[in-house]
């Protein structure tokens, strides 16, 4: 188990990167505590898999250092870093039985047979695959294959960190949920540092204590699931997390007032900085219908089960609101009330209001 420190990491797939756009990872600094459950969340191509492969040692970064427990491992190959990695598609050794698959990493490291047998039994019990130990791994179902590839990582006692690279992609929906809760349970029982890469917010938010949101090779925000939801530091986080995402509305500044479609908006706190392009951010959950407020016409109502999403046209902007119970119908004129402590200003994408204590 280890604390992981990433210091000034940069990576480019080009041999001679000329400018910042050539980098798949643009300067990453992170500190991960021993035994934590972390998620790397971001859209495809944001650099999260690159980052994962750098931590596991499959890729060598263009610059920067990786430290495990303050020990520099940047130049160590993967097998000497004591890491485990579970890939998007289950990687199993087809010709071996499940038992031989589990024993493989230990045998390669010269562990004695008695010790291997007991570890294999332990891991099989942990993953609930005891009855499959003597089946050939190629005959398993995808979710069990994924368990086997997980087991090959966990079987080593000295494992520093277990990494998951979108491990549920090929799993059937009804088994996804099962395997996900199994992962969470494993984390609690094994106690190793775990890093989970995904583009699925539900997976990230349910698995991790702390989520790192990435976009275009940069870390946009690090926080608990609640923090990411409640107070996004960047419009990207607000938009990417939540269903539907945060409303991002165009605003202008006039005589110290923030104007949205000619309405003066009340913000959570004082505005920081100046210049730049201004946007207003508020989650649909914090907009309600009232007797007074911003007037708009209902454009679309989608009933998604427990609640409805109402899209209202205000001037030339579309505003989404979420609510339960009796909802206005399409074409109705409504008044929208924005909750003040959840209404924030963003400057060039980044948050520009101070939180009220």
């Amino acid at each position, binding site marked *: 188990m280890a604390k992981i420190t990433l210091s000034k990491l940069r990576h480019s797939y080009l041999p001679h990167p000329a400018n910042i756009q050539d980098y798949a990872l643009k300067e990453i600094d992170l500190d991960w505590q021993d035994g934590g459950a972390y998620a790397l969340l971001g859209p495809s191509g944001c650099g999260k898999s690159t980052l994962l492969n750098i931590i596991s040692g499959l890729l060598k970064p263009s610059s920067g250092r990786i430290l495990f427990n303050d020990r520099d491992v940047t130049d160590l190959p*993967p097998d000497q870093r004591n890491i485990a*990695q579970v*890939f998007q*598609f289950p990687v199993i050794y087809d010709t071996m039985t499940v038992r031989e698959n589990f024993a493989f990493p230990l045998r*390669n490291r010269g562990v004695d047979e008695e010790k291997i047998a007991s570890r294999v039994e332990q891991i099989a019990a942990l993953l609930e695959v005891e009855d499959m130990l003597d089946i050939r791994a190629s005959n398993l179902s995808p979710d069990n294959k994924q368990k086997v590839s997980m087991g090959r990582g966990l079987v080593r006692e000295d494992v520093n960190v277990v990494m998951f690279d979108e491990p549920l992609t090929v799993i059937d929906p009804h088994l996804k949920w099962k395997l996900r809760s199994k992962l969470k349970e494993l984390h609690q029982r094994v106690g190793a540092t775990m890093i989970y890469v995904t583009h699925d917010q539900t997976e990230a938010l349910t698995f991790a204590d702390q989520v790192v949101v990435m976009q275009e090779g940069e870390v946009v925000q690090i926080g608990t699931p609640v923090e990411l939801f409640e107070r996004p530091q960047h419009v990207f986080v607000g938009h990417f997390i939540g269903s539907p995402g945060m409303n991002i509305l165009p605003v202008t500044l006039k005589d110290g007032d923030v104007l949205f479609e000619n309405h003066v908006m009340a913000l959570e706190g004082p505005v920081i900085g100046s210049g730049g392009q201004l946007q207003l951010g508020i989650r649909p959950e914090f907009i309600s219908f009232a007797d007074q407020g911003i007037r708009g016409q209902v454009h679309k109502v989608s009933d998604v089960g427990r609640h409805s999403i109402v899209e209202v046209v205000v001037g030339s902007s579309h505003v989404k609101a979420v609510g339960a119970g009796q909802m206005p119908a399409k074409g109705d004129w409504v008044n929208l009330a924005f909750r003040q402590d959840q209404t924030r200003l963003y400057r060039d994408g980044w948050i520009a209001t101070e939180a009220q204590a």
Partner: protein
Amino acid sequence: MKTENQKAWFFVLPVLLLVAFNALVPIMTVVNYSVQETFGNNVFFWQGVDLFEQILRSERFQAALGRQFLFTASILIIEVPLGIIIALSMPRQGIWVSVCLVMMALPMLIPWNVVGAMWNIFTLPEIGLLGYLMNNVLGITYDMTQNPFAAWVTIIVMDVWHWTSLVVLLSYAGLVSIPDAYYQAAKIDAASPWKVFRYIQLPKMKTVLTIAILLRFMDSFNIYTEPFVLTGGGPGNSTTLLSIDLVKIALGQFDLGPAAAMSLIYFAITLLVSWLFYTLMTKDDRK
């Protein structure tokens, strides 16, 4: 809704006719010849299975069959491992991939009789490049027209030159289909290069290798043109493989009955070995 009629058979009819004319009818003609003896004038005498017995007991057939198995075994033992080694050392990406693939495919594009003629000229003592080099420059006696061992070495090397590429190309196709994650997982599991080959590459190549070996077996077991052009079956009978012997009996001596019986035995052996091999190789997959 399900309608039942027999219309579907009409769609199969063209294929059925084609197969009948290019396979069934010729084979049945051979079967017809194999149970009769003729001395010309279209007069036939019923022989039953006598001709089969006669062929199977003849020392000439047994010797030719032995040579045939020796030849096929030799080229398989050389071509399969060599093909795998070449495939493993070929680049997986970059401009060299297509260069390597084209170079590999070249020998297979040359017509069989040209290959035989090429190697014949190449290896002739005194005038051939290789023959001259061996005898007159290196001082090693090498004459495939006189020495049976030299003739054998030459036909085997020729076949290896001509057909190893097939094993290479099929193995290579198997290799490039292995996802990177397998190699990455192997690195993390501290697997040695041998274990990567044994537990990842070889199992993933198994299907294409089965096909490659099967094709090489059938082709080499039925080989005729190249050794016939190169050595003509000699010196003596030392490189008279089954097919060469068959042609000698059928067209040289015009013994149609024995030749037909021999063809059927030949066909049965090829079929049996191929079936056995394929069944053994795919046994695990069907479990």
